[in-house]
């Protein structure tokens, strides 16, 4: 018997040795994977260092000083009951939105500040590479007065179709509507418009949801609107879950009645949610001619509202696949990155190595699904645009004019002491039950510690084959401020997208873009006639060399941001463009046959 057992043991020894070696080999896999990964990055870095321009076709140079931009954001102080976690609570409010407010053909931009009594700025483009803050002169600077709350963001839209873009300013506080008086001055028209007295909002977008030619307005609440963050009745104002919170601010849909008046119709139109909205984007995702509405929520799942031909909305997050796995949605931007005429939706979330790996989402329509049956799948991992740290704002734009949309993501939450992290205490409470997490008094004090601070930004270049390559450091984006909002615009009318980045408690950055010679482009500045004058919702598809790319005029996208209204298409080496199709919000279709390249087209909606 013993002999037999010994025989079996002898036979098993080589097998055991094999398993022992296998175990060690398995433990070495992460090391090997990292080694291969870092070698790949090193190769890319060495190639890029030689010449970013030659390797990636563009280079971004931070040029705020040269452009005469001197703006730094400050955070509010809020109620003293929140002092122990003030930097974490007051971690938003730096925003940028692009507009040509005076119709001089040059893109200007508005930036928000959030300290009590701090001033917002409207940078007027002087056309010589320099900007001048004209907010005090036009009446848009002193908007953070004590008792009125502080700015969180702003969006531009011509709500009265007089040809000049008006400004909606959303705050943790009293939202404001400013009428643009011919590009010379702004008049506060909040009361006439019928806006609510107080909303703790972090997102708003202009859209014409019913196609009546007048811009409507969606506003997403973050904190409950019954909370005044400067006069708290108690400390139970935090989210009641890290992943499933439903105690946030309500949503508003203001229907434009004309004559400068709005009616709040969210309930009537089927938008009822108290999730913690941080970003919204409106776009026609199904080809119905009406804008659908996507909302990225912090502390929970995203929501997608299909537009029922202007008669109402219904929520289809779960049905379409985008509203299933809860994360911390921070931004929402749409882009036709595959050049197939359909929009993907990018949602940024938060990730920290070894602690919390949510990953950003890129929702792409599943093959074979469309219309009301459209289904989305998250392709962020497969396309290489998932890992963005504690991501906030993101925008799609063709940064090198190669005919493919690239992606710029800013990140970083609270940068204080580099050596001490708040992550442990944050994760301790964030995982707790609602009765614990919802009470700010239970949150351990920050005590000067960082929470996902000093992060490197992401600039992902689209390779046209379904993958993106991260090149931020290589193309000149080297800042590590707490990035919040990013907007892209062609500030010098040269067919190149520059970037403006608003940082929390940090300087406003102006990244001037230099694009390598040889790639062509075309831009369209649309003006509605029967449609809303801003042409928000106009859908433009360019066809060239067997490619097609769709873009839509947006009334706000990303995180607290708005790109230029003008649509920019990079065309690569194409020497001609076959046609451009425009579907106006009114439903009118227009085709431009073989427009000349490298030009800016100003197009008015046909009568």
């Amino acid at each position, binding site marked *: 018997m013993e002999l037999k057992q010994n025989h079996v043991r002898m036979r098993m020894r080589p097998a055991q040795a094999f398993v022992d070696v296998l175990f060690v080999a398995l433990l070495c896999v992460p090391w090997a994977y990292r080694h291969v990964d870092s070698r790949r990055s090193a190769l890319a870095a060495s190639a890029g260092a030689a010449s970013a321009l030659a390797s990636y076709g563009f280079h971004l140079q931070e040029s705020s000083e040269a452009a005469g931009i001197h703006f730094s954001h400050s955070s509010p102080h809020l109620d003293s009951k929140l002092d122990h976690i003030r930097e974490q609570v007051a971690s938003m409010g730096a925003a940028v939105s692009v507009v040509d407010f005076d119709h001089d053909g040059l893109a200007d931009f508005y930036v928000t500040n959030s300290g009590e009594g701090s001033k917002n700025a409207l940078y007027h483009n002087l056309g010589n590479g320099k900007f001048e803050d004209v907010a005090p002169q036009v009446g848009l600077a002193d908007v953070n007065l004590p008792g009125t709350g502080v700015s969180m963001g702003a969006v531009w839209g011509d709500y009265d179709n007089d040809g000049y873009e008006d400004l909606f300013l959303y705050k943790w506080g009293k939202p404001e509507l400013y009428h643009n008086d011919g590009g010379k001055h702004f008049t506060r028209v909040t009361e006439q418009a019928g806006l609510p007295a107080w909303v703790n909002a972090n997102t708003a977008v202009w859209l014409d949801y019913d196609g009546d030619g007048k811009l409507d307005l969606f506003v997403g609440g973050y904190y409950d609107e019954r909370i005044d963050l400067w006069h708290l009745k108690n400390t139970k104002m935090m989210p009641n879950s*890290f992943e499933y919170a439903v105690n946030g601010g309500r949503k508003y849909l203001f229907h434009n009645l004309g004559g400068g008046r709005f009616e709040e119709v969210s309930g009537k139109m089927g938008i009822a949610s108290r999730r913690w909205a941080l970003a919204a984007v409106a776009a026609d995702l199904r080809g119905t001619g009406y804008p659908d509405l996507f909302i990225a929520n912090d502390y929970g799942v995203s929501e997608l509202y299909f537009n029922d031909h202007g008669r109402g909305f219904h929520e289809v997050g779960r049905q379409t696949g985008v509203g299933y796995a809860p994360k911390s949605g921070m931004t929402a931007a749409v882009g036709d990155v595959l050049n197939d005429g359909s929009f993907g939706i990018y949602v940024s979330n938060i990730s920290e190595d070894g602690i*919390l790996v949510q990953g950003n989402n890129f929702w792409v329509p599943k093959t074979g699904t469309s219309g009301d049956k459209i289904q989305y799948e998250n392709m962020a991992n497969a396309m290489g645009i998932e890992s963005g740290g504690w991501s906030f704002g993101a925008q799609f734009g063709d940064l090198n004019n190669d005919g493919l949309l690239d992606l710029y993501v800013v990140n970083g939450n609270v940068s204080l002491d580099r050596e001490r992290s708040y992550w442990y205490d944050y994760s301790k409470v964030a995982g707790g*039950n609602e009765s614990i997490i919802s009470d700010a008094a239970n949150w351990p004090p920050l005590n000067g510690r960082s929470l996902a601070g000093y992060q490197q930004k992401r600039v992902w270049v689209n390779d046209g084959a379904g993958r993106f390559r991260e090149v931020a450091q290589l193309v000149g984006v080297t800042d590590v401020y707490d990035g919040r909002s990013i907007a892209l615009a062609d500030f010098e009318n040269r067919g190149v997208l520059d970037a403006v980045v608003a940082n929390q408690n940090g300087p406003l950055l102006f990244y001037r873009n230099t694009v390598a010679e040889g790639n062509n482009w075309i831009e369209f500045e649309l003006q509605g006639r029967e449609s809303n004058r801003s042409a928000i919702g106009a859908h433009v598809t360019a066809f060239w060399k067997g490619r097609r790319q769709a873009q839509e005029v947006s009334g706000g996208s990303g995180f607290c941001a708005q790109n230029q209204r003008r649509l920019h298409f990079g065309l690569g080496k194409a020497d001609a463009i076959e046609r451009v199709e425009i579907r106006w919000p009114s439903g009118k279709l227009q085709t431009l046959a073989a427009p000349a390249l490298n030009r800016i087209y100003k197009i008015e909606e046909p009568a």
Partner: protein
Amino acid sequence: MKLLARFFSIENRYLPPILITTILLAGQLSFGLLESFSRTALAIAAALLTELVLSRLITGKYANLASAYITGISVGILVRAPDFWPYALCSAIAITSKYVVRWKGRHLWNPSNLAIVAMLLLAPDYVSTLSVQWGNTLWPMLIVWVLGALIVWRVKRLHITAVYVISFVALSLLRSAITGHAFLAEVAPITGPMYQLFIFFMITDPKTTVRTRWGQCLVAFLVAAVEMALRLAQNVHAPYYALAIVGPLANAVEIWWASRSHVAPAPRVVAVA
């Protein structure tokens, strides 16, 4: 009635797999607990395949897969990674460890605990662990706690869970006194689903816990105590590391003690990972 009693008996090695599957499905269908079904399926498949191959290779027989299934599903729930490979790798490490990390014929580490700790240490840039909750109300949590407690009571391991929970709560008070943070902040982690898997499946694993009842209670307390020390050092993954430190040490002491007394401890049959 007899059928029900037999189902809930200690001999039913499929009871824990059924419970953990219930938790998985309830969590996913109601709250979207998983990173994705496909990643969890990969973790389970990798665990089952590794178990089949290695058991055949080492013992000449195919092992019962209940234990490997729990390991796979635990990995699928607890590991968070954007990539797919960490799920397969973690499961493979867990199962392989059962055939490698042994002393005198016994496991030292809980396989999934060892594998998760290995991944956290070796691949922190690719992997984190479960952080989401069971919704925002107490009910789902209470249901899982009651169901879990019922199961571990039937398999005669409730005392381990109870000692750990009591110790954690008591030590939360102590931590609160030391850090000055609210008691509720210190006790908050145990209200999350990660802990439900930890206290019902990991620390109660029959094959990797000591044999005597009092020894098991002592080990449960020591896990909570070491976890407290790690928490004071602000370690985000404190429970995993605490079990990875205390578990094998306790087993090693018992094996050494048993070898001195020439008492061969008989392994139990209930399958838990």
